[in-house]
């Protein structure tokens, strides 16, 4: 049967799929009822308070292991789809991080409750940032050893050295290890461009990045050409910097078209991957070569089995709720199963902000949406509560009023739950829509009747599986209320992105199923790429700036904001940019997703707020 979440973002690393990363911090959203058009919704919350929303408070996510947590047992994790890559160098999909957080040790890591900044994991302490933010020095812990290899064989008996971390990062440039964020977050590392040229000539050998040096076997230094240390340190919490010894991996990395290291990997975390059947299951066992206590991961479970293929996520959720020793992997409880969980098994459900948003993007380069007043009219008319209902109502997420979601620095500064205030933002201040305001904007756009006249045909490309297809249909009806004749074309999600919405030349007038999940908790990771004009010119066939926004003021602001090192200043600046983007009305933001995680009654789950999913190193069985 066709699943709601099976195809959502299955193999699109980072594209807003089913789940997202998040922080359970200060996001408040008022409770709204679906359907009836009476309430205005965004009224009650304060913009400076830290009251957690009613929904989040009812189903809080546990972020610390309970006192006296028991060691042992096997946890079964039900999954809809597979990880995007089993190779940590290429992994980018949020659920994949569930596995990687347990088996890999990048330089920095995320304890479940910490989301402000990553904590040292392989690194023995916080890095030394010198030279005005251009040199970062890490010391790594001694005596860390590799696990037995996946797929059998001799493995690697030598301990981890700094050179292994350097090689792990460099191999991300190989076309056989398609890393999705190296060129983005490591852009300022010296020698990157030369390394990229070198790998083009010889795609079978990982090139040397001269800006990464290892003066001795326990020290690694990053030399940057610009002071973007914060971004780089955050990026070093992603699995790419988990050590990979060149002597072991070079052979696998020389294979084309893809490196086979992933199926033969050696891990350094408290668990290792002992078995991988693509599309079927992944088995994690305790890493016998891991020294307990060497980092902040307690590792209670003995074994984890991730079973894939549960395309009917509703029955998977009910299986988890009524069974034992199970949790979910890459799907949230939505719709009916969310209702069941919330009403019948409230103690087994937890909600966490997902650190992502969803919006309906206008193509601002062609008529009719190249006119800002037309766009504002549609946003004013949109019933965002009805849109959110297609995902399950108030439990599915907060009603979005701007683009940075709760938990990301800049959220409060951009207006918090209520969104930006002021009369110039009036079009975004009516969650259930205000037709008369919309009509007044239409008149400003030149449609004297208040509704579209003349050539009113617009194209919309959406996904063909629920709930995305449902959202598109609701959106279509809302556009039609203003007189637009919408031609809706549902296609496979992969086709929607790679052939239509992300291809500048082919983009339709409206892409209703787009959104963004953070890479980590920083404004840059949230609104830079989606709204920076450079994205459009730089990647015309893989464009994630779906509105094709290209405003010089915003571009300049984004390009300089990433170098701000003071956290408070950084947050304020990104909040300001968020509001500037909202003012240009490039899209209709409608939800800040919650991840709804479920667990069987005999599981004590711990949710890691980095990816708002179960943390396997902290979860235990009761």
């Amino acid at each position, binding site marked *: *049967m*066709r*699943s*709601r979440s099976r195809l959502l973002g299955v193999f699109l690393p980072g594209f807003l799929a089913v789940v997202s990363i998040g922080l359970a911090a200060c996001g408040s959203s008022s409770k709204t*009822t*679906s*359907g*009836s058009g009476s309430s205005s919704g965004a009224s009650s919350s304060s913009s400076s308070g830290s009251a957690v929303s009613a929904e989040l408070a009812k189903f809080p996510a546990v972020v610390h292991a309970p006192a006296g947590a028991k060691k042992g047992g096997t946890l079964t994790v039900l999954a809809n789809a597979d990880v995007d890559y089993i190779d940590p160098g290429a992994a980018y999909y949020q659920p994949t991080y569930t596995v990687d957080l347990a088996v890999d040790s990048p330089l920095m890591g995320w304890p479940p409750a910490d989301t402000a900044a990553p904590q040292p994991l392989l690194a023995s302490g916080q890095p030394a940032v010198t030279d005005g933010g251009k040199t970062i020095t890490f010391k790594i812990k001694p005596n860390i050893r590799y696990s037995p290899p996946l797929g059998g064989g001799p493995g690697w008996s030598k301990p981890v050295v700094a050179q292994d971390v350097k090689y792990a990062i460099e191999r991300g440039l190989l076309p056989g290890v398609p890393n999705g964020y190296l060129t983005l977050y490591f852009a300022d590392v010296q020698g990157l461009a030369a390394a990229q040229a070198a790998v083009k000539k010889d795609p079978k050998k990982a090139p040397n990045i001269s800006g990464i040096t290892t003066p001795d076997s326990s020290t690694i230094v990053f030399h940057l050409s610009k002071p973007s240390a914060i971004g780089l340190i955050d990026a070093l919490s992603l699995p790419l910097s988990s050590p990979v010894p060149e002597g072991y991996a070079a052979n696998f990395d020389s294979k084309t078209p893809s490196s086979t290291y992933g199926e033969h990997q050696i891990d350094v975390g408290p668990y290792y991957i002992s078995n991988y059947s693509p599309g079927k299951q992944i088995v994690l066992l305790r890493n016998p070569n891991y020294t307990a206590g060497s980092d902040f991961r307690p590792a209670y479970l003995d074994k984890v089995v991730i079973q894939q293929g549960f395309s*009917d*996520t*509703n*029955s998977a959720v*009910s299986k988890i709720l009524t069974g034992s020793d199970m949790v979910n992997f890459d799907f949230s409880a939505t*719709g*009916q199963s*969310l*209702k*069941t969980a*919330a009403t019948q098994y409230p103690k087994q459900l937890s909600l966490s902000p997902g650190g992502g948003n969803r919006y309906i993007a206008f193509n601002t380069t062609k008529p009719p949406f190249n006119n800002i007043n037309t766009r504002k009219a549609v946003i004013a008319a949109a019933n965002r509560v*009805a849109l959110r*209902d*297609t*995902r*399950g*109502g108030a*439990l599915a997420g907060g009603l979005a009023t701007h683009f940075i979601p709760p938990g990301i620095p800049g959220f409060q500064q951009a207006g918090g739950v209520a969104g930006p205030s002021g009369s110039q933002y009036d079009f975004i201040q009516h969650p259930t829509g205000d037709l008369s305001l919309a009509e007044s904007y239409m008149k400003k756009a030149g449609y004297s009747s208040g509704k579209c006249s003349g050539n009113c045909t617009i*194209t919309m*490309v959406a996904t*063909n*599986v*629920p709930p995305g*297809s*449902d959202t598109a*249909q*609701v959106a279509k*009806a809302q556009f039609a209320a203003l007189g637009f004749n919408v031609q*809706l*074309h*549902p*296609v*496979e999600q992969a*086709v929607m992105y790679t*052939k*239509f919405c992300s291809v500048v030349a082919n983009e339709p007038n409206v892409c209703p199923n787009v959104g963004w999940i953070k890479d980590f908790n920083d404004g840059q990771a949230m609104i830079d790429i989606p709204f920076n004009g450079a994205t459009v010119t730089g990647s015309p066939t893989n464009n994630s700036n779906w509105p094709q926004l290209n405003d010089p003021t915003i571009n300049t602001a984004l390009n300089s904001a990433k170098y701000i090192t003071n956290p408070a200043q950084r947050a304020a600046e990104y909040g300001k940019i968020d509001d500037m983007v909202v003012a240009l009305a490039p899209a209709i933001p409608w939800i800040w997703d919650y991840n709804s995680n479920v667990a069987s009654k005999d599981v004590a789950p711990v949710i890691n707020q980095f990816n708002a999913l179960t943390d396997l190193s902290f979860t235990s069985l009761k």
Partner: protein
Amino acid sequence: MSVSTTSDLELAEAEAGAAVELVAGGDIAARSPWELFVRRFREDKFALVSIGFLVLLVLVAIFAPVVCSLVGAPGPYKADTNALDLFGQPTGPSSAHLFGVDQLGRDVFSRVVYGARVSLLVAFVSTAITTVIGVFLGLFAGYYRGWVDTLVSRTVDAWLAIPYLLLAIGLASACSFGTGCVGGLVKPGVPVVIAVIALTSWTYPARIIRGQVLSLREKEFVDAARSLGASNRRIIVKELLPNLAAPIIVFVTTFVPTAILFEAALSFLGVGVQPPTPSWGQMISDASLNIQSQWWYMLFPGLALLFTVLAFNFVGDAMTDALNPRTRKS
């Protein structure tokens, strides 16, 4: 596939175009093949009821808006958000909605009624196209033999291995935009479904017709026509086609239900009729995720499909029996 022979008496009967029958009382009455056919068809009560049901169904499909307003149903496209509960979940049968609502709040009764249009349209059109292609190719292959036959037969063999899903999804995404493909004829939704069904199923009638033509072309009346100097075209049109009427009719009546189910399966897998156009297969697909608690919008379209296909099958069976001279025995 069976290699048995027809008895000579029956052969003579069929070819003479008349039948001899013993009637109680000792008189011998002549009946035309058409009368015989209607007589035998009438014996099958199930088939008669089915014909009645199908006529009713076609009427309902054509007059769908009237039917809906008679019952007070709001129509298939109106999303009634009041029928969704606090969690955005649909409610079941009620006085406002006879069959409940679907996940967007649309009335299931109306959608089942309008869904008949899609199912019947797809079934009839795709059957027609499939039959035309299949008969054409089968006829040529069977009559001309030689390289034409080899080409067609080998293509038929290889065709089974092509994944039709690939074709369906590929067609749907390629023809998504603007005027679609083939000058606007092929667009995602009903046209793509029809194209996929026709492209994958033409091999069945082709095979059947080829077999029939192979045996027919050896018969005396064809020889007779040829010796009289008739051209190939005349032989095909005047001699062969009329004798192929029976197997063609049988094929059509047995294929229509298959086409309906094929459309339902394609919609179920997401490559069929596109929302918001209601189609029974699509509704079952939407409903499939919530059957334990929202049984209504899987049950009603499923029953509609079941009864429609059943009716076509009964009729098809009766036709087959009535047209097949051999089942008269015993």
